[in-house]
């Protein structure tokens, strides 16, 4: 069974919700990415989302943009991200890893080589932000052919017809973007999220992760009450940005542990 599905099944059996933290690979420096991934798991992460840095991250807010710039300045590339996942897998074979990034670095590598090397490195799923399902049919077939899950976004503005089109191609889980805007924005309205999720659940049995705008344990708890997974990105990237190197891993581990505790208090 694919690692992502296996993880969600196990959590469901325990009545728990998943915590999916995001970090940008290579930020604050490439040597710290694998230690950070382990720190996220120690803090209580269930699935890791690893950002592939891109020069023009159109869907990201300033915090994740800056992390991408820091990583690129240090020579990060998609191939190096895959090497990091391979390194992580030497000591963690159980935690699912999802890559999140933009289409162009993947196209530059080639869909087939990317899918083959990603599976080889131990990647479980890929969220390609700027590949909507209409443009992604062959790509998704390539990913699935190699056993990779294709994660897709749904948003508050997604129509019922588009939800149908997206869930037909999606696997692993659905990532519901909980507000209009870019990553790191404020004003998450949980009542609104709760109202939107049933329309998605009617059309798919896939677990639903909710992200964008979740910054503290209390919000994480409330999101976990309605979703299957809580995705947290900018808040963690911000912690990485401001932490001194000597306490970086500890700070990130504590931050994730706090979010974990919030999520486990739900319901």
């Amino acid at each position, binding site marked *: 069974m694919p690692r992502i599905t296996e993880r969600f099944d196990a959590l469901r059996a325990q009545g728990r919700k998943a915590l999916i933290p995001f970090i940008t690979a290579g930020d604050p420096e490439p040597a710290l990415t694998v230690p950070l991934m382990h720190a996220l798991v120690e803090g209580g992460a269930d699935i890791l989302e690893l950002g592939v840095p*891109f020069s023009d991250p159109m*869907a990201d807010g300033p915090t994740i943009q800056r992390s991408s710039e820091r990583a690129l300045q240090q020579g990060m590339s998609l191939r190096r991200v895959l090497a990091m996942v391979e390194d992580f897998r030497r000591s963690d074979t159980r935690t699912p890893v999802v890559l999140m990034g933009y289409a162009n670095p993947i196209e*530059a590598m080639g869909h087939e080589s990317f899918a083959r090397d990603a599976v080889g490195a131990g990647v479980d799923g890929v969220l390609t932000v*700027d590949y909507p399902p209409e443009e992604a049919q062959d790509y998704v077939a390539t990913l699935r052919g190699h056993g990779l899950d294709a994660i897709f976004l749904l948003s508050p503005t997604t129509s019922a017809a588009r939800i149908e089109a997206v869930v037909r191609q999606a696997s692993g889980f659905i990532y519901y973007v909980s507000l*209009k805007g870019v990553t790191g924005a404020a004003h998450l309205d949980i009542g609104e999220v709760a109202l939107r999720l049933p329309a998605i659940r009617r059309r798919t049995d896939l677990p639903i992760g909710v992200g964008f705008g979740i910054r503290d344990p209390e919000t994480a708890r409330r999101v976990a009450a309605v979703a299957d997974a809580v995705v947290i990105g900018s808040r963690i990237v911000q912690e990485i940005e401001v932490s001194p190197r000597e306490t970086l891993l500890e700070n990130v581990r504590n931050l994730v542990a706090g979010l974990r505790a919030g999520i486990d208090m739900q319901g």
Partner: protein
Amino acid sequence: MQLYDLPDARGHFGPYGGVFVAETLMAALEELTHEYQQAKADPAFMAEFEHELKHYVGRPSPIYHARRWSDSLGGAQIYLKREDLNHTGAHKINNTVGQALLARRMGKPRVIAETGAGQHGVATATVAARFGMECVVYMGAEDVKRQAPNVYRMKLLGATVVPVESGSKTLKDALNEAMRDWVTNVGHTFYVLGTAAGPHPYPMMVRDFQSVIGRECRAQMQAMLGRQPDAVIACVGGGSNAIGIFYPYIADEQVRLIGVEAAGLGLASGKHAAPLSAGTPGVLHGFRSYLMQDENGQVLPTHSVSAGLDYPGVGPEHAWLKDSGRAEYVAVTDDEALQAFHDLCRFEGIIPALESSHALAYAAKLAPTLPRDQALLVNLSGRGDKDLNTVAALAGISL
């Protein structure tokens, strides 16, 4: 040539174009596509567009025979389509009038735009004032410094100019930031994109609004010469002035279509903005086209003396016209463009924009190789007043 009916329903020109954006923008683009199709089919909308072009922009713009310059070059005759005589001094306003009318039709009180040199920003601020809309213009922090007069123009016109500090702090980053604003404020905001690029329907819509240039040319050349030109030449950054003059000529295969990119310090130097001449296909800013990128798919910084051509991508229809062989794409350097800039000033009493000077420079190369009875039509897409500081600084003069 077969009937040309691109793009397809999802915005593809062959393998190029399309919609490559996050799900958060899909609904806005679908709404825009639908509304634009309705407007295009509405005679009242098109009549108002034409009325604005005539009475506000000052169309039709004339075609001028650059006789002294042609004689000095000693070959084909060069004709200039005078888009520099439009209100605000460039072709950009054809598109911003069209999009502002569409914004008003859609009930959006706020417009946003990206700008590089500031020409599209000024054209957007102008129509926002004209139609009483709130206007926010995103501009790379580097460009804000380099283009202070245009920043002040936008402010005079009531626009808010937001300097963009991310990435290379130039046009591509301004475009990223405008997209981020749009996705956040999509309910009441219309994104006035300035070139024939971006996700569908922008490349098609901007082409349609700009193709008034080529339609006028067909009638004007017929009246002046009793025939169409042998070649049409236009500079290509994002490619809106070029597609505007090319489009009505695409089916007319006797007419050569030549797009001129910015070779900057030379294609071999890597310091240029010529994705069609020296790039490879990729995905940026919501569409697939030729792109300046490294082997890892990261977008490369660009260089051109002309801020309006300083962009790493190019409109998808140009990518298609290149691959299909219908149009030719060449590149001229900063120095060649500057020479043409000075020549047009001295021979014809016209100060051209540095962008348009690239098209002029290629015409100056081509004309002497052709007989005197041939006609080259160059799109003089803008006037050069905005470039006086740049040109003076290169000559070591501080204004």
